[in-house]
């Protein structure tokens, strides 16, 4: 910025300092520290010992729980992201219709997004409660068998996915809705003149033009799915047994419950690689979209 006086050579650095200092102390330095931690064997009683890749080898070769967590997170991510992508399009299209009470419907679908993960988990725990839950009461009323929803491995995973989708769908539907509203009305007019019905318009206008938005939904959904912790930790605690123990809970457990700092750091790096890759994919996709 050209200006007659230059008393502010250091001004921008002054304005940046608090924010950057926090970044450095609480994000960048810890990230580097994490990398070193992953190369050490730690114990609460002895000084850390450098062991190179031992933690990673242990995770990959011997740690059954790590593999369990990896398998769980893959099942969770696939179910979660498939449902979110599909349903967010459905809900987005529905909320984009010219219906009465549209504002109310939009708020209703969005409302769960506001709730804290803890509240979401408690709400569903109350509904799914084995003895007193309303869902089992309804099943019983219909003459069907009660189910131990959160006490059986397969059901617990199902509900873990369902509850997370329930809690985050409104967020993704809103992104889709914004994408839909950006499609020019003239295009619909054009295909209507060409004789296309509703389905034709959806296939030939909506879907292709919505693709970039769907890519965003997909990648954001993947990132958030891999990072999930709160909802499931409160809903199932990772159980029954380790049936819904996901990767972040594995790290939490190793770091704060078992004092296995080296292992926790190594597992963190595995998660970091996944999230890094997805973020880079998102960035590259954004660049590509701008260039097209």
């Amino acid at each position, binding site marked *: 910025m050209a200006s007659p006086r230059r008393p502010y050579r250091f001004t921008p650095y002054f304005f940046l300092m608090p924010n950057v200092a926090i*970044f450095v102390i609480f994000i960048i330095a810890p990230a580097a520290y994490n990398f070193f931690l992953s190369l050490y064997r730690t114990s609460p009683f002895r000084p850390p010992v450098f062991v190179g890749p031992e933690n990673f080898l242990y995770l990959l070769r011997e740690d059954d729980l790590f593999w369990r967590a990896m398998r769980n997170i893959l099942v969770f991510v696939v179910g979660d992201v498939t449902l979110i992508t599909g349903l967010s399009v459905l809900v987005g299209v529905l909320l984009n219709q010219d219906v009465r009470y549209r504002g109310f419907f939009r708020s209703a679908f969005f409302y769960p997004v506001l709730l804290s993960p803890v509240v979401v988990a408690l709400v569903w725990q109350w509904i799914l409660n084995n003895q007193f839950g309303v869902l089992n009461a309804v099943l019983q009323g219909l003459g069907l068998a009660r189910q131990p929803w959160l006490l059986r491995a397969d059901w617990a995973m199902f509900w873990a996915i369902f509850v997370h989708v329930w809690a985050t769908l409104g967020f993704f539907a809103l992104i889709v809705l914004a994408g839909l509203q950006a499609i020019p009305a003239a295009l619909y007019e054009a295909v209507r003149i060409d004789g296309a019905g509703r389905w034709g318009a959806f296939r030939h206008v909506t879907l292709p033009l919505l693709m970039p938005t769907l890519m965003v939904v997909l990648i954001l959904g993947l990132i958030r799915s891999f990072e999930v912790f709160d909802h499931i930790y409160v809903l199932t605690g990772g159980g029954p047994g380790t049936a819904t123990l996901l990767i972040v809970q594995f790290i939490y457990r190793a770091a704060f419950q078992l004092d296995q*700092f080296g292992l926790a750091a190594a597992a963190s790096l595995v998660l970091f690689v996944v999230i890094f890759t997805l973020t880079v994919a998102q960035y590259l996709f954004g660049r590509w979209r701008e260039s097209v």
Partner: protein
Amino acid sequence: MTSVKPAQRRNGQVDAATIAAYGCLVLGTAVMFLPVLWIVLSSFKGLNEIYRIPPTFLPEHWITTNYSGALERFPFLRYLTNSVVVTLVATAITLAINSMAAFALSKYRFPGRDAIFLVILGTLMIPLQVIMLPVYLVIAKLGMANSLWGIIIPPSATPTGVFLLRQYMLTIPDELIEAARMDGAGEFRIYWQVVLPLARPALAVLTVFSIMWRWNDFLWPLIVINQDRLFTLQLGLARFRGELVTDWHYVLAMTVLSIVPITLVFAVLQRYLVSGIATTGLKG
């Protein structure tokens, strides 16, 4: 007449599809809304009514003793105070330091600007989940473990906030700043009295998100705090997870109380939240 007919037929078609749309919307609304309604209703029922099978939908007798009992038996107000303090202080800090950084990045030209901006954006790739152990070790070294400052400070410099505000401030014409400078305004005054007021819409979006992030935050407080008297609402509520809970009537009442403030915030500031998500994909 002839010109009316096609319109009528089209109306007829619209009706069939509209009914289907309404059907889906009502069903979806039920799935999204009923669970919350259910705990609100349950929270006004007596202990033997909430455990009754088959359950009642509306309370037989509307009672409020669950609420008064919960307030007596659990340090709910303490949790609430902690949550309010964390949310307000953290949001104030976030707004202040993020807007200062955004101001520097959008309104000055200086060596290292683009590199700093890239690094800030790059921290998006390092969510708390990936560095929770080392951040906790740093916090512990600084003596902030088991303190509200430990919850407040580390997540207060948000890359999304800096990005959002910077993008918005880029649209503020530089001429305004030049004019203020000609009039003899200092740099801090330009930031405070020229740029910040003009950036109000973006600040409002960040405010709403920060309130939501902090009010609902769970993992980071869970790591930092292990003393009951420092629990936030979310930590206090999460103590009651699991199948073995017997005090469900209190848990329900406290859960309902905890969603009242965020619901009010939503009712007042919904449009900022919606525009924030729609335009930037900010985390909800």
